[in-house]
């Protein structure tokens, strides 16, 4: 079933009785060419591009809950390509281009809204750092504009320009950045993968690996043993736990990140505004809710909820930089578990076990990576070669010293 404006209109006339389930609910087969563990954004895009780019369709995505019930449905939906380091820069650039073609590619409205990402600067040093970052973005072929205080005022007049502690000196504006509808991204790729023959198997938890002579043969699941030629892990916050079942110890810790949303309001926030010095960022959803968040709670956690101190901190930082939000009522807050790597950058690589591949360590920023991650992970699974946009996300970079520490904070996962 293709989607179109006409279809929506027609179904409206028929009382919406013609819509059908968008993907099948297949029973697991005894064996697949490739099994992807995790039906979040990255697992679904990987399956989609395995089928689409490489013609590998005997593929299953095993999800322990329901599709899109993990972080892909819990994040604050910011999409951007404003990285500094070679390794990250080309990857997020590639991913942003895929975002720009996604709705046509999937015939699915993922509500990609490129209304810009503005990072605020409060000192000369920060302006210099942003100039450098902006130049790197331009060299990468993406867009960046360094704004002075008046430029920021024109873009976001509601900010606190009188702050003594954090006077607004300017900002870095990345106009092609923005937000997208997170659930729709999962559903769109799920539908696309299913249509090409991928089995999306929900309520199917992987509980162990069958490994013989250093090679993976398949996975034990809550729905029985399933054999596989290759297995790819894409389980986000659970990366450490799932890898441990294969005997791997990783440079990853799991941490909780909170986010908050207000009641629905008329459009007021253009795109995304980040106040990095105060650990605060804000955007507005298409429903009108102000969506905002800050830093991790800083301690290891697998509880999909945070604690009060960080909630208060985010509210205080928000009030300091965007005082008008004090008039809105906060409706909800929630937490999601992030696989924080030791250098703050992801891993897309093979593992020491033959046939077992790893996609993880996405930290704060895995939503914007969703299409690029699937594209590059599928490439590695299918061809055995690193995709040119993802050559540095190696598992051994920590030993060899080739870390990608974008923030320059060292091996402290809670600091990235």
């Amino acid at each position, binding site marked *: 079933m293709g989607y179109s404006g006409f279809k929506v209109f027609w179904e409206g006339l028929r009382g919406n009785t013609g819509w059908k389930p968008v993907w099948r609910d297949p029973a697991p087969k005894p064996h697949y060419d490739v099994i992807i563990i995790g039906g979040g954004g990255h697992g679904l895009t990987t399956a989609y591009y395995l089928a689409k780019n490489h013609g590998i369709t005997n593929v299953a995505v095993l999800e322990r809950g329901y599709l899109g019930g993990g972080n892909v449905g819990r994040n604050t939906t910011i999409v951007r390509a404003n990285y500094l380091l070679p390794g990250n820069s080309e990857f997020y650039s590639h991913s942003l281009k895929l975002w720009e073609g996604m709705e046509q590619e999937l015939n699915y409205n993922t509500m990609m809204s490129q209304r810009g990402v503005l990072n605020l600067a409060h000192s000369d040093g920060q302006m210099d750092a942003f100039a450098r970052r902006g130049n790197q973005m331009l060299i990468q072929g993406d867009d960046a504009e360094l704004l002075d205080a008046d430029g920021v005022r024109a873009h976001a007049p509601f900010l606190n320009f009188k702050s003594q502690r954090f006077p607004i000196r300017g900002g870095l504006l990345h106009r092609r950045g923005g937000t997208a509808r997170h659930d729709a991204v999962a559903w769109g790729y799920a539908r696309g993968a299913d249509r090409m023959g991928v089995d999306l198997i929900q309520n199917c938890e992987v509980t162990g690996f069958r490994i013989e002579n250093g090679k993976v043969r398949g996975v034990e699941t809550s729905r029985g043993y399933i054999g596989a030629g290759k297995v790819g892990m894409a389980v986000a916050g659970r990366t*450490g*736990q799932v890898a*441990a079942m294969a005997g791997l*110890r*990783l*440079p*990853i*810790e*799991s941490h909780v990140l909170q986010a908050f949303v207000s009641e629905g309001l008329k459009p007021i926030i253009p795109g995304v505004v980040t106040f990095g010095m105060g650990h605060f960022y804000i955007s507005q959803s298409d429903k009108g809710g102000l969506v905002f968040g800050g830093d991790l709670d*800083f*301690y*290891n*956690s*697998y*509880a999909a909820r945070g*604690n009060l*101190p960080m909630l208060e901190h985010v509210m205080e930082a928000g009030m300091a930089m965007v005082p008008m939000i004090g008039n809105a009522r906060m409706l909800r807050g929630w937490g999601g578990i992030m696989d924080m790597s*030791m250098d703050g950058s992801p891993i897309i690589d093979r593992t020491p076990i033959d046939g077992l591949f790893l996609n993880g360590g996405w930290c704060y920023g895995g939503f914007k990576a969703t299409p690029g991650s699937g594209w590059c992970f599928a490439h590695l699974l299918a061809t055995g070669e690193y995709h040119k946009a993802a050559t540095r996300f190696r598992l051994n970079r*920590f*030993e060899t010293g080739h870390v990608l520490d974008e923030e320059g904070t060292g*091996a*402290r*996962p*809670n600091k990235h």
Partner: protein
Amino acid sequence: MRIECPQCGARDVREFTYLGAAVLADRPDADATTEAWQDYVHLRDNPAGPHDELWHHAMGCSAWLRVRRNTLTHEILTVTMAQEDRT
């Protein structure tokens, strides 16, 4: 979360700073192998359940504490002085 500091009693988590897994207290010798250092600096068990970790009572008595905490529930299980624990 409240942490029961052995010196100060139960205090709000806001008074403490988190460092990381307690293995950080077991620094290898300077001439240890690269593997031992890689293990110490980068690799973690990352358990979903009881986890030994180091907290600094920065806004209190300034002691380093070794805290066993359940990462699934945030329940604090035991707290000892990090230093005593090492000897």
